C-alpha cells in the first residue's frame, strides 16, 4: 500500500508546484494595473470582473505551458511501475514526491502529463488560428470588397469546406496513405504562404512612396518568412532550428484548413459593412489602390470583432485538437496532449476516473477562460 498525502496535502502541494506561474501572474497583473490607463482596450478589460477572470485563466495556462519543466515533477513519459493506477496523492517511493493527481494505466504521473499537454495545445491552437486569420482575411477582404464573381467563387469554396464533415476530413488527411503523398505538404505550402503574402501586400501598398522603408520591410519579410517557410514546409532549414514533425504539421494544416472559412465569412461580412463608410469613398476619391483600401482602411476597423472572434476561435481549436486526440488522429499514442490523454483514461473511466478527468477539466478551464475573455472584449469594444 502506497502512502497518501491526503486531500489537503494534494491541494497545498499543487498550489506549491505552480509557484513560477503565480509569480508570473502577480508580476503581470501588478504591471497591468499600474499602467492600465495607458493600455487602451486591455486596460479596460482588466477593470471588469469577467475580463479579469479571463485574463487570469488564460494567463495561468500560458505561464504553465512556459514553465512546464519547472512545474511538472515528473517527465510526461516517465513510467514508475508501482504507481500504475495510483490514487491521487500517492507518494512515489523513490523520490518521495507524490503523484498529486494519481497515475494512469501506464504508471505515468497524470499531473505532469496534464502540465506538459498544455504545451502542445498552446503551441498549436494560437498559431493555427493566426494562420487561418491571415488566410481568411486575405480572401475575405476581396470577396467583400469587389463582390460579384470573386465573391461568388470564394464564398462557394468556403461553404464547400464548411459543409464537409470535419472529422472525415481529418481522417483523410492523417491516414498513412495520404500522409505519404505530397498532399499535406502541398497544403502546408499553400497555407504558410499567406502570412508572407499578407505582410508583403501590407507593406507594399502602405509605403509605395517611401522607397527606403519599403525595401527594408519587404526584405525582412522575405528573408525571415522565407526561412521559416523553408523549415516548416520543406524541412530544409539550413541551421536545423525550425523543424516540425510531419504528423504535427498535418494537424496544424488540418486545423487551419477547417477554421479559415469561418474567418473568411466574418471578414467578408465586416468588409461589406465598412466599405459603405464615407472614409472609404474619401480614399477612393484620392485614387487609392483597392488593396490599400482593404488592408489599411478596412481591416484596422474590423479589428474589434476580429479580436473577439480570434479568442473564441482559439477555444474552438483547442476543443478540435482535443477531439482529434480523442480519435487518435495525428498525435502519437503516448503524446501527453489533453485529447489523447482523455482517450487513454476513458478505458478505465468507471474504475479510475482521474486520468481522464484531469485533462478534461484542464481543457474546459482553458476554453472557459478564452470565452470569458471574448465576452468581456465584446462588451468593452461595444462601449467604445
Amino acid at each position, binding site marked *: 500500500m502506497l502512502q497518501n498525502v491526503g486531500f489537503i496535502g494534494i491541494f497545498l502541494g499543487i498550489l506549491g508546484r505552480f509557484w513560477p506561474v503565480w509569480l508570473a501572474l502577480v508580476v503581470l497583473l501588478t504591471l497591468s494595473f499600474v499602467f492600465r490607463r495607458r493600455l487602451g482596450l486591455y486596460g479596460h478589460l482588466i477593470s471588469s470582473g469577467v475580463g479579469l477572470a479571463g485574463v487570469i485563466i488564460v494567463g495561468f495556462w500560458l505561464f504553465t505551458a512556459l514553465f512546464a519543466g519547472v512545474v511538472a515533477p515528473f517527465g510526461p513519459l516517465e513510467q514508475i511501475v508501482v504507481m500504475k493506477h495510483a490514487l491521487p496523492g500517492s507518494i512515489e517511493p523513490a523520490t518521495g514526491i507524490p503523484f498529486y493527481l494519481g497515475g494512469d494505466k501506464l504508471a505515468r504521473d497524470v499531473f505532469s502529463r496534464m502540465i506538459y499537454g498544455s504545451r502542445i495545445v498552446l503551441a498549436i491552437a494560437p498559431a493555427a488560428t493566426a494562420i487561418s486569420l491571415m488566410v481568411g482575411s486575405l480572401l475575405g477582404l476581396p470577396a467583400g470588397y469587389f463582390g460579384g464573381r470573386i465573391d461568388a467563387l470564394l464564398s462557394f469554396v468556403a461553404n464547400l469546406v464548411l459543409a464537409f464533415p470535419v472529422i472525415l476530413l481529418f481522417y483523410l488527411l492523417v491516414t498513412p496513405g495520404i500522409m505519404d503523398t505530397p498532399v499535406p505538404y502541398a497544403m502546408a505550402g499553400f497555407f504558410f504562404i499567406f502570412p508572407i503574402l499578407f505582410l508583403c501586400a501590407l507593406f507594399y501598398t502602405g509605403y509605395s512612396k517611401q522607397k527606403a522603408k519599403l525595401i527594408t520591410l519587404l526584405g525582412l519579410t522575405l528573408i525571415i518568412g522565407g526561412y521559416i517557410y523553408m523549415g516548416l514546409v520543406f524541412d530544409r532549414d539550413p541551421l536545423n532550428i525550425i523543424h516540425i514533425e510531419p504528423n504535427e504539421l498535418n494537424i496544424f494544416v488540418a486545423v487551419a484548413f477547417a477554421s479559415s472559412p469561418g474567418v473568411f465569412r466574418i471578414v467578408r461580412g465586416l468588409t461589406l459593412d465598412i466599405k459603405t463608410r464615407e472614409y472609404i469613398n474619401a480614399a477612393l476619391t484620392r*485614387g487609392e489602390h483597392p488593396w490599400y483600401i482593404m488592408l489599411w482602411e478596412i481591416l484596422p476597423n474590423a479589428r474589434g470583432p476580429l479580436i473577439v472572434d480570434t479568442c473564441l476561435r482559439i477555444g474552438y481549436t483547442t476543443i478540435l485538437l482535443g477531439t482529434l486526440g480523442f480519435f487518435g488522429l495525428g498525435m502519437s499514442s503516448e503524446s501527453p496532449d489533453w485529447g489523447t490523454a482523455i482517450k487513454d483514461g476513458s478505458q478505465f473511466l468507471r474504475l479510475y476516473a482521474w486520468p481522464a478527468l484531469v485533462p478534461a477539466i484542464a481543457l474546459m478551464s482553458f476554453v472557459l477562460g478564452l470565452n470569458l475573455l471574448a465576452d468581456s472584449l465584446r462588451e468593452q469594444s461595444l462601449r467604445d
Partner: protein
Amino acid sequence: MSEPILEISNLHISFFTKIGEIPAVMDFSMKVMPGECMGLVGESGCGKSTVALAIMRDLPGIGRITKGSIKFRGRDMAELSPAELRDIRGSKIAMVYQEPMASLNPTMRIAQQLMEVPLIHEKVSQAEARTRALDMVKAVKLPDPERIMNAYPHQLSGGQQQRIVIAMALLSKPALLLLDEPTTALDVTVEAGIVDLVKDLGKRFGTSMIFVSHNLGLIRETCDRITVMYSGEAVERGNIADVFATMRHPYTQGLFRSIALPGTDKNLRPLTAIPGQLPLPHERPSGCNFGPRCAYFEKGRCDARDVPMFEVAGNTRHESRCLRIAEIDWDLPPKRRDTQIAVVVGEPVLEIDHLQKHYHVAANEIFGKGERRTVKANEDISFTARAAETVAIVGESGCGKSTLAKVLLGLETATGGRVMLAGQEIEKTGVEKRDTATVASIQMVFQNPFDTLNPSHTVGSQIMRTLEKFGIGKSIAERRERMFELLDLVKLPRAFEKRMPRQLSGGQKQRIGVARAFAGHPRVVIADEPMSALDVSVQAAVTELLMDIQRNSRTTMVFISHDLSIVRYLSDRVVVMYLGYIVEQGSTDQIFEPPYHPYTEALLSAIPIADPSYTKRRVVLEGDIPSATNPPPGCPFQTRCPRKSQVPGDLCETQLPPLRDMAADHQIRCHLAQEVLDTMGPVIVATTAEKA
C-alpha cells in the same frame, strides 16, 4: 384658468457612470396647458431628449431624477405604481420617435399594430378596434387606407411609416403627445406634410403636444410656446411670438443669428457664429453655462453662482436665464464680419453636357441571366460651373444628386453625355485611371462628420497620406510642414496632428475633411451637405470657413443640399433636380423669385423659416417621391404636381417637358403655359418692408 396637463418643476436628472454623477438636466421647469403645443429646442447633448424620456418615466438604467417633480394632471408621477404608469403610458401620454422604422414591428401588419392600442388599453372588440384603426389611418391622410392596413412596415415609405406611428400614438386619444424629432429622418417636402398633419390633428383632437427639435424654424411654425435649452438648462421660455420678436437670452439670439435666413447673404450679411463649443456635461463652467461663449459675459458676476430664471418685463409667461436682461441692448445688430466684395466668376471649369447614368441591377450575379432592371439615376443633366463660383444642386433623396457627385469624382462612369473638367473629358475615366493631377483637382467634402475620417488612423497621418497620394512635397518633412499649414488654414491647433478622430468634435472633424479636400489645390470641390449633421451653432463657423477658403483659392464649389435656406445664403447658381432630371436652373435670385417650377415652389414652401418677419405661401405636396427603377411616364414630377390641372390634356402624363429658357441662364422644365408661370406670386414674402 384651467389646470395644466403637465407640470414639471425644478427637475434635476443625473446619469451615474463610472466617472461619477453627471448632471444631464438641471433646474428644469415647464408647464403645458390643455391643447397647447410646447416646442423644446436645443442642440445635441442639451438634455431635451432626456426630459422627454423622463416624462415617459423611461430613463435608461443609469439615469435618475435627483430632485424636482413631474406632475401629470396634478398627480406626481413618482408616486404612481408601475401598473398605473403602464396604464398612462401609451394611452394618456404617447410618444413618437425620430426613426419610424424602429418604432414599428417589422413582423406585424399595420392593422394588427394599430388595433393593439385600443385592444389593450380599452379592451374593445376586434371589429371595433379595426374600425377605429381604419378611421385613424384615414385621419392621417394616407392614400388607399385598406391597402395600407394590410401592408407590412417595410412596404411603406419613410413618410408613410411616420404617419402610421403618429396614428398609433393618437389612437388611444392621449392627453399629451411627445414628438422627439419626428421629421429629422424625412425629406423636406415630406416633412412639410407631417408638420401640417400634426398641427391639424392637435387642433382636432385637442391634444397637448411637446415637440422636441433642433430646428428653430420648425418649432416656430408648429408650436404655441417654446423652451430653449442649453447644456442641461432651460435658458429661455415663452410664447412663440414673444420669444421670436424679443429674444432675451444671448444663446437664443446667437442661435437665431447663426442660421441662414432669407435676409442673410454670404457677401453683405454673413452669418455670425457662436464662438467656442458646447461644454461637456462634466466640464460645465460655474455660474451661467453659456458664459464662456457669451459676448456679454461679465467676470465675477455671470460666473459667481447658478443663474435663476427671470421674468421678462412686458411679456406674459416669458422668462430668461440671464442676469443682464435689463442691461443688454438686445436690438444692437451683431458685430458681423466685414462684408465681402462679391467674387468675379471666371472661365468655365466644369462643363456637364447631357450627362446620363443608368445602373443595371441583375437578379443573379454568377449566372447573370435573370431579369435585368435599370435604375435611371441621372437623365439628361447639363450645367456649367465657373471658377470661384458656387453652384448648388438641390433635391430630395433619390433625385440623383449623389450619383452625379460620384460620376464627377470618377467613382462611377457615365452611361452617356460628357463631363469636361478644365477642358479635359473625364466622364468615362474612373478614378483609378485618372492621373494624379486630375484626381487632386476634383475633391469632395463628405456629409457625415462621424464617418468622414478613418477612426483607426491619426488626423495627421490621414492628411499626410492625401498629400503623398497627390505628390505634394518631396520628403516626409516637407509634407508635414504642408500638413501644418492645412491645419492652420482650417483654424485647428497643430497639436491635432497626433489626435485620433474620436477625440474630435463633429465640427472639428468636418474641418479636417475640408483640409483634406483642399490639400491638392483642387479646381472643383464637391460639398455634400457638409453642415447638415452638425449642431446649429457650429454650422455657421464651418460654413464661413468653407466660403473663405473657397474665396481665397478661387475654387469652384458644387454644393449639394436639400436645404434651400443655406443654398440661398451661399450659392451663386442653383440647379434643382427631381428624379434624375434638372427641373429648373438659374441664378440664385431667379430661383427664389417667380416664375417657379412647381417643384421648386413646393420646396421653397416646405423650408421652415425661423424669422417671424417673413411669411410663406403654403404648397404641400401629396404622396412620395417615385422610385427611380420605375419612373412615371412623361414629366417626372407629374405624380405629385399640384399644378397639373392647369396643363391642358394629358400632356404631363405622356410627354417629357422640354427645358424652356425663361431668361438669360434661367431654364424650367415644365408644360405650364407662359401666362400661368407669369402669374405666380413669390412663396416667401417679407412682412416688414424694412429689415436691417
